C-alpha cells in the first residue's frame, strides 16, 4: 500500500510539473500559446472525467457533450446575471451539469451495453434539439449565448461602475485571458487529476471496476451496483460541466453545437487514443487531438506547396492534392481515420502502445502484462 501511495504522489508531482511547465516544453512544437494550452487543459478535464465513467465501468456514454454544453450555458448566464468573476460561473456550470447528469443517469443506467449508449445519445440529441428550438430564450438558439452591454450583472453593479465596452472574465481582478487563464485551467486540471487518482485507488473505484468485469456477479453477491454507477455518472458529468464552464471562462460564449453528438464522439476518441482506464491516457489523448487539430486545420494549399516544393512540379501538385484532403477543412477525415486505426490496432491506446514498446526492451520474464492485452484476447 505504501509503495502505491509513494508512486502516486510521484505521478501527481510529474503530472503537475508537466502541466504547469507546458508553456516551456511545448514551445519547440509550436504549441506554446495560451489559447491552445487552455484547450489542452480544458479538454484534458473533459476526457479525464469521461474516463471515470467509461474507463472504470465500461459504460460507453454517447451523450457527454450535453453536460459540456450545459456547463457553458450556466457559466455564461452567471456572467450575464451576477458577476464577471469566474468562480461562481464554474460552480454554476458544475452544479447544473451535475443536476442534468443525475436526471439522465437515473434513467439511462437502468439499461446497460448498447442500450445505455443509445439512451445517452437520445438524451443528448434531445437537449441539442431543445437548445436549438424551444429553449431559445435561454440558449439564444443558433446565434449562441453571448455577453451584451445591457446585461444586469447584479453583483458587479453593486460595487463598481460598468466600464466601456464588454467586460472580460476575471478572478478577483485578474483577467482570465492569455496565460492567467491557462494557469487557472491548469490548476483546476491538476486538482481534477488528483481527484480521479483518488477515485481510481479508492474502494469506490474498485467497485466500479468490478462492474466492468462482471456486473452480474457483483449483483449476485447482494450488492446494489446502481448507486455506485449513478455516482460515477454524475461525477463524470460534473467534470464535463466543469470543462464546459471553463470554455466559457476563456471565451464567454456558448452555442448549441457544443452539445452535438459528434462532440460526444470526440471525447470518446480522446479517451481511447490515450488509453481507456489509464490515469494519464485521457490527458495525453486530449492534448494530442487538440494539438493536431490546431496544426492540421491551419494548413492550406500554399503551405503545402512550400512543403513539397523540392519535388518536380507534376508530383508536387499531386502530393498537394492528396495531402490537401487530410488537412485544413479535411481535418475531420484525418480524425475519422485515426479513430479507426486506434480502435483496430491499438484498443488500449497510447499507454498500452508505450507498454508494448517497453516490453520489447525488458527481459522475457516480465512480459506478463503484454500477453493479456484485449487485442490478443479478441483474436483467440
Amino acid at each position, binding site marked *: 500500500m505504501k509503495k502505491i501511495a509513494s508512486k502516486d504522489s510521484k505521478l501527481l508531482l510529474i503530472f503537475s510539473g508537466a502541466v504547469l511547465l507546458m508553456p516551456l516544453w511545448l514551445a519547440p512544437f509550436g504549441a506554446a500559446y495560451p489559447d491552445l494550452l487552455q484547450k489542452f487543459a480544458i479538454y484534458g478535464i473533459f476526457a479525464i472525467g469521461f474516463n471515470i465513467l467509461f474507463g472504470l465501468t*465500461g459504460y*460507453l456514454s*454517447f451523450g457527454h457533450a450535453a453536460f459540456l454544453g450545459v456547463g457553458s450555458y450556466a457559466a455564461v448566464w452567471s456572467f450575464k446575471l451576477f458577476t464577471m468573476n469566474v468562480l461562481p460561473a464554474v460552480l454554476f456550470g458544475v452544479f447544473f451539469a451535475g443536476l442534468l447528469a443525475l436526471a439522465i443517469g437515473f*434513467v439511462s443506467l*437502468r*439499461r*446497460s*451495453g*448498447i*442500450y445505455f*449508449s*443509445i*439512451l445517452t*445519445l*437520445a*438524451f443528448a*440529441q*434531445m437537449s441539442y*434539439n*431543445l437548445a*436549438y*428550438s*424551444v*429553449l431559445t430564450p435561454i440558449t439564444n438558439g443558433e446565434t449562441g449565448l453571448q455577453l451584451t452591454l445591457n446585461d444586469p450583472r447584479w453583483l458587479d453593479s453593486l460595487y463598481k461602475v460598468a466600464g466601456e465596452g464588454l467586460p472580460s472574465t476575471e478572478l478577483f481582478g485578474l483577467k482570465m485571458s492569455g496565460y492567467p487563464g491557462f494557469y487557472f485551467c491548469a490548476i483546476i486540471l491538476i486538482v481534477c487529476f488528483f481527484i480521479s487518482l483518488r477515485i481510481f485507488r479508492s474502494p469506490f473505484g474498485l467497485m466500479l471496476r468490478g462492474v466492468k468485469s462482471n456486473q452480474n456477479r457483483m449483483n449476485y453477491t447482494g450488492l446494489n451496483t446502481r448507486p455506485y454507477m449513478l455516482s460515477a455518472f454524475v461525477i463524470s458529468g460534473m467534470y464535463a460541466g466543469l470543462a464546459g464552464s471553463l470554455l466559457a471562462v476563456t471565451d464567454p460564449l456558448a452555442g448549441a453545437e457544443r452539445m452535438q*453528438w*459528434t462532440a460526444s*464522439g470526440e471525447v*470518446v*476518441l480522446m479517451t*481511447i487514443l490515450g488509453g481507456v482506464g489509464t490515469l494519464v491516457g485521457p490527458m495525453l489523448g486530449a492534448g494530442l487531438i487538440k494539438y493536431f487539430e490546431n496544426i492540421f486545420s491551419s494548413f492550406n494549399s500554399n503551405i503545402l506547396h512550400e512543403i513539397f516544393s523540392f519535388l518536380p512540379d507534376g508530383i508536387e501538385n499531386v502530393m498537394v492534392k492528396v495531402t490537401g*484532403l487530410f488537412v485544413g477543412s*479535411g481535418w*475531420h*477525415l484525418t*480524425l*475519422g*481515420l*485515426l*479513430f*479507426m486505426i486506434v*480502435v*483496430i490496432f491499438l*484498443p488500449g491506446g497510447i499507454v498500452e502502445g508505450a507498454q508494448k514498446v517497453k516490453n520489447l526492451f525488458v527481459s522475457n520474464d516480465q512480459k506478463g502484462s503484454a500477453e493479456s492485452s484485449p487485442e490478443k484476447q*479478441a483474436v483467440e
Partner: protein
Amino acid sequence: MDAIIIQILNGVDKGAAYALIALGLTLVFGTLGIVNFAHGALFMLGAFCAVTFNKIMTLSVKIKDESVTLFDAYKEEPYLKIWFGETGEALIDYAVPLSILFAIPIMILVGYVMERGLIRHFYRRPHADQILVTFGLAIVLQELIKASFGANPIPQAAPAILAGSANVGSWIGLGDTLVYPWWRLIYLGFSGLIIFSVFAFLQFTTYGMVVRAGMRDRETVGLLGINIERRFTIVFALAAVVAGVAGVMYTPILPPDYHMGMDFLVLSFVVVVVGGMGSLGGAVAAGFLLGIVQSFASMNEVKQILPGVDQIIIYLVAVVILLTRPRGLMGRAGVMEE
C-alpha cells in the same frame, strides 16, 4: 379529416425512410451481431450515387446556340441529347429512378468490401469497439463525400411527369383540397416493395431460410456444414443495397448533403431499439409508427400545447419504451435485453 390524413401520409412517408434504414441495421445486427454506426453513411452513399449518375447523364458539351442570331451565343448541350435526341432527353429526365440500376452494383461492392475488409475483424470484439470503429468509418465516408461533392445540398429533380401532386382526396371521396406530391407516393410504394421483397427473400427462399437459421443459432448451422459467414457477408451487402436504394429514391424529397446519413442514423437506431433489437418486423413497424408519431407532433395544434415536442418526441418514445419494455415492441424475450 383532411389534416389528419395528410399527417398520416407525411408520417408514413418519413417512416418509410426510417423503416428501410432500420431494416438494414436489424439485418446486420441479427446476422453478424454487429452494431453498425456506418449504416447511415450507406444511405448517404446511395443518395450520392444518384447525384453522380445524374452528373454522368448530363455530361455536356458547349455548342453554338442557333436561336440567337445577333451575336455568337453558346449553350450547354448534354451528349445524350445530341446522340439520341428526344430519347436522350427522356433518359435524363428519369435520371433518379434509373440511378437505382447504377447504385445497386456499387452498394453491393461497398457492402462486400466493408464487411470483408473491416467488420469481419470485429465479430468477437465488444459492442463498444464495434460502435467506435463504425463511427470512425462513418466520419471518413462522410468527409470523403464532402471533399468530392462540397458541403451544400445538391437538389435532384424527380421525373417531370411526377413533379406535380396527386389528388388523393378525390380518390377516397374527400374533396379536392387533399393533395399529395406524386413522388412521395411513389416513394411509399417503392419502400413497400423493397420491404416486401426482403421479407419474401428471407421467408420463401432456401437461402433466406439458412440465413434465418443462422440468426437463431449460428453455431449449429455452421456444424451442419454450411458456410454461414459467407452468407452473412451477402446479407451485409443486401443491407447496404437496401440503405443505398432508399437513399437514391429519397433524393428528390430531401436534397442530399454529406451529413444526411448521420441525421438519419441516430433516429434509425432509436427505431431499431423501439422495434426490438434483431426483430425485422419490429424495425419496420416501429419505423412507420415513429414516423407517424413525429408527423402528428409537428402539427401546429400540438405544438401550441406542448412547444418543442416535435423535436424530441421520437427520443421520448424511445426512452419510455426502453424503460418499460426493454426488449422493444416486437423483440423476442431474452435477446439483448440487458
